[in-house]
């Protein structure tokens, strides 16, 4: 089935069959990164701008490599060395970049809704690479791709998402996606980082990791955003570690063939113990590898074919 969106702003607007189209397409792109010549000519002559207003290693370089392996030209925009430091507004920055006729702009911003806002005055395709605490669609897609790779399908899975749910766009995109695929989701974290409002999404909430991890197929750990710790969401790192860190002892309660995921960057010894992060059950680096294939698929599906009307 065809993918008819002009933009990729979030998972919420996708159907389950569109999600499967992205995953199936990514499956075909995976092999390209294993070749000696890691490049196909598909997007030759297309220009893509990486517009990151927040620091990032994984997502930015993953999009850059995805574009390059499809032969597109990509320009990296760095906020610190741009005119925004001279006081240019966000809107003017994007309007100027849009005037250079790129074929897509990939945006990351600390405010929710920025990519959506950009579509109201831009001509080009917009891809959300993470906006505030809203969505991070390509992360959820690569997580789903990794789960399918490990578990073959999504039937009867129990997926745990553990940590700072409140601030996490990764958690939100994953909730939207896994729900569309009818996967059972349990959110785990301290009450201050796990608002009861999340029940509205139809997921289970649990403040006790030892109990919730029982019988889990996938344990997805989120980064504790240490930079927010000054606002005292929990008493101390040590207490958080005692209650919510993924240790070998805790992980033993999950299913025997359960896998460990993390969107990165990881805080070793905080939300996940170092030996768990490096264990054979951890697919953290596979997620990174799969990210390129998934982003190639997204670029291909958005930029392929004739220009179409936006349906976002």
């Amino acid at each position, binding site marked *: 089935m*065809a*993918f*008819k969106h002009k933009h990729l702003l979030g998972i919420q607007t996708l159907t389950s069959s569109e999600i499967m189209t992205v995953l*199936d*397409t990514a*499956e*075909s*792109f995976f*092999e*390209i990164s294993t*070749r*000696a*010549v890691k*490049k*196909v*000519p*598909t*997007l030759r002559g297309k220009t893509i701008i990486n517009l990151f207003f927040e620091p990032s290693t994984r997502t930015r370089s993953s999009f850059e490599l995805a574009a390059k392996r*499809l032969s597109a030209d990509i320009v990296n925009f760095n906020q610190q060395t741009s005119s925004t430091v001279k006081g240019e507004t966000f809107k003017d920055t994007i309007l100027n970049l849009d005037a250079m006729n790129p074929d897509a702009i990939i945006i990351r911003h600390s405010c929710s809704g920025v990519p959506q806002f950009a579509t109201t005055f831009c001509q080009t395709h917009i891809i959300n690479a993470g906006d505030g605490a809203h969505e991070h669609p390509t992360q959820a897609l690569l997580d789903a791709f990794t789960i399918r790779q490990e578990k073959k399908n999504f039937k009867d899975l129990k997926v745990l998402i553990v940590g700072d749910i409140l601030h996490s766009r990764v958690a939100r995109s994953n909730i939207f996606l896994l729900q569309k695929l009818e996967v059972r989701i349990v959110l785990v974290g301290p009450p201050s980082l796990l608002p009861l409002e999340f029940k509205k999404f139809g997921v289970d909430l649990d403040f006790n990791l030892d109990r919730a991890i029982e019988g889990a197929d996938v344990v997805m750990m989120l980064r504790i955003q240490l930079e927010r710790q000054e606002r005292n969401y929990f008493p101390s790192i040590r207490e958080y570690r005692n209650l919510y860190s993924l240790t070998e002892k805790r992980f033993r309660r999950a299913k025997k063939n359960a896998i460990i995921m993390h969107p990165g960057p990881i805080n070793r010894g905080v939300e996940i113990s170092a030996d768990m992060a490096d264990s054979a059950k951890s697919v953290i680096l596979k997620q990174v590898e799969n990210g390129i294939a998934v982003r190639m*698929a997204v670029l*291909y*599906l958005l930029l*392929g*074919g*004739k220009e179409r009307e936006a349906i976002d």
Partner: protein
Amino acid sequence: MEEKIKARIMDSRKIKRAIHRMTTEIIERNRNLKNLVIVGIRTRGIYLGKRISRLIKELEKIDIPVGVLDITLYRDDFSELEAQHIVKKTEINFSVTKKDVLLVDDVLFTGRTIRAAMDSLIDLGRPKTIQLLVLIDRGHRELPIRADYVGKFLPTSKREVVQVQLKEIDKSDEVLITEPPGMK
């Protein structure tokens, strides 16, 4: 409206004979048969390739590996298509470098598919030679490409469609000329 079948060009016996003849030509021409590998172009090229590999095994007792090539990412009309083509996997589990590669497709028409396939192959390695086998050559070339082994030359008009059906995925083995609905 159904497409109209104008002519039945080959049945399963004729297809079998053509494959047999082409296979003997391949054996005759490739003295060092052990260096041969087959790459079938999706979709029907794969099954033709597999049949030829089986036949070579029968005749010469040599195993010839068969790979699968999807040329979607190498098309030259990428931005003119109405919607994206579904990209399928390329599965070539052997090195093509220094090999004699036999590229197999069902119908040779404009030559653009073969151009894309050759570009794709060369990105995978440096073959010693590339040879082309097609079941039907229907003419109307837009690029300077010709096949080394041809099952049947079939003069056609441009608006006609040549359909190769193979029993691995279709009902039976046959080659048809059809005309799309709404054309006179």
